[in-house]
């Protein structure tokens, strides 16, 4: 049974310089400046199962580094239709998410606005219709989570990067207005345009179809077992404090936190993108390469995201005082990750500088595999596997962040999607 252990309400607030920030709690309502609609979204947090739920859908916190690298890995794979898979995953996952978010909203204008508000609330940026209330010819993006990711890593790139947003818009027009359309990004802030511009065109093919039931009912899978206790590190306090952080898009629809830009990504999107990409790669005879690609993206995410977390003021204030050695830091970092909606996982064994074992009770990838496809003959949690290596790279590796990539390697040797009770990971020094 789904019982939110903590309910955190968070509304976007615009504040002038010098004003004190305030954080409404418990689903208060306010008007979002410049948008004109009421934002009534809340984040329900199940701290036992480490899940986050917004408007009826499970969401996963990742940063701009991970999301843009994942996009590059999938879209940039020319052996399969990576770009088509990426956009199809965006469209179909958003179709399901937006349909669930429309309960009690019937007027087309209100439904459309709710779509844009949810997009902003989740941290993907801010979208506007420049020529009216409803989209007839184009939609404009004034800020973009994905542009932030690409421009941080590849500032010289000028090609448009907002295919995820185009997929969202196709879903939104279908769910809000019942019109099957396509969107093409004709100008992008990544290419130095003042705003991202998406041109709407009628669609000849099939209408968007929703996917995903993972979202609506997180499993009753057991939480991960208790790992080695580091006396000074209060994991429960860390999880509660980070879970209680007001994480929602600001007036630009971005979530700057922990020294990165976070976004609350629908779990269905990650699962659909991963499952369909790996299936296409297997069909092309490159299944192992596909898995390695996704794991490497996650490893780099583990390094960058958690390097950002470890150098943040939040870390200095909350976690650094609990840490006396790198092993304490590792436990603190994994505790933080338990507030990100990935599912519950714990360190079960740690040999400082050499190896680490982790156990996940309900990782979102295993649940997604079981819901979308069914049991798997091989472990499927590529993100958690890559992050396991990235955490070891970060805490025990040497050199710059870039130089640490690949110093540790990880594998998933048991997976719930393959019938195991829990997913278990081993990260150790690379051979």
């Amino acid at each position, binding site marked *: 049974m789904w019982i939110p252990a903590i309910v955190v309400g968070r509304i976007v607030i615009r504040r002038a310089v010098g004003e004190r920030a305030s954080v409404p709690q418990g689903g208060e309502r306010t008007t979002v400046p410049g948008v004109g609609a009421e934002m009534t979204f809340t984040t329900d947090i199940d701290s036992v199962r480490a899940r986050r739920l917004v408007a009826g859908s499970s969401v996963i916190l990742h940063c701009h580094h991970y999301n843009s690298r994942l996009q590059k890995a999938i879209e940039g794979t020319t052996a399969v239709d990576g770009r088509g898979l990426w956009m199809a995953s965006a469209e179909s996952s958003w179709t399901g998410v937006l349909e669930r978010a429309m309960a009690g909203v019937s007027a087309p204008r209100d439904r459309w606005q709710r779509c844009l508000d949810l997009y902003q609330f989740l941290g993907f940026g801010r979208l506007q219709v420049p020529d009216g209330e409803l989209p007839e010819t184009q939609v404009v993006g004034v800020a973009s989570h994905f542009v932030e990711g690409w421009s941080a890593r590849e500032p010289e790139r000028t090609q448009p990067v907002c295919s995820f947003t185009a997929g969202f818009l196709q879903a939104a027009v279908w769910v809000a207005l019942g019109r099957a359309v396509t969107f093409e990004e004709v100008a992008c802030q990544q290419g130095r345009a003042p705003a991202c511009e998406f041109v709407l065109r009628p669609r000849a093919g099939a209408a968007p179809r929703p996917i995903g039931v993972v979202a609506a009912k997180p499993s009753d899978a057991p939480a991960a077992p208790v790992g080695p206790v580091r006396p000074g590190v209060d994991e429960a306090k860390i999880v509660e404090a980070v879970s209680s952080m007001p994480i929602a898009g600001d007036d630009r629809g971005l979530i700057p936190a922990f020294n990165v830009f976070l976004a609350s990504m629908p779990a269905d999107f990650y699962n659909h993108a991963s499952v369909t990409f790996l299936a296409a790669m297997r069909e092309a005879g490159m299944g192992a390469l596909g898995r390695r690609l996704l794991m490497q993206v996650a490893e780099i995410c583990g390094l960058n995201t958690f390097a950002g977390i470890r150098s943040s*003021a939040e870390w200095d204030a909350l976690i650094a005082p609990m840490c006396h050695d790198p092993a304490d830091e590792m436990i603190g970092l994994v505790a933080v990750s338990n507030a990100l909606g990935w599912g519950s996982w714990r360190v079960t064994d740690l040999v400082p500088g050499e190896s680490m074992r982790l156990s996940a009770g309900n990782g979102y990838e295993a649940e997604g595999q079981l819901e979308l496809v069914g049991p798997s003959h091989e472990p499927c949690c590529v993100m958690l596997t890559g992050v396991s290596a990235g955490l070891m790279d970060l805490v025990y590796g040497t050199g710059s962040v870039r130089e640490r990539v690949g110093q540790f390697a990880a594998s998933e040797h048991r997976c719930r999607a393959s019938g195991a009770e829990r997913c278990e990971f081993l990260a150790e020094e690379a051979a």
Partner: protein
Amino acid sequence: MTGTYRERVFSCPRDRTYKYYLPKEDAQPAWERLREEFGAPSPGACGVLVLETPRLLLRAPSWGNPLTVIRKRGWSEDDVRRFHELIGFPGDSQE
């Protein structure tokens, strides 16, 4: 190292973000000068102290040290120079 020093925060989405480490005895006086110049800081999530100036965002644990400085859009060298004066940072070669 005994005086104030700083380290670059490379993973920050904003360019040229630094974390300033102040000698323990200097932290409180520095924050008093910052308060006089920019107003009182606000409590943020996870026990973080937040002080937003027109072109800088200052963040620190509740005891004020270390102090992370994020440069907002439109920041200038004058903003950074003034901040350095207020906390007593003589500058270094990192810029």
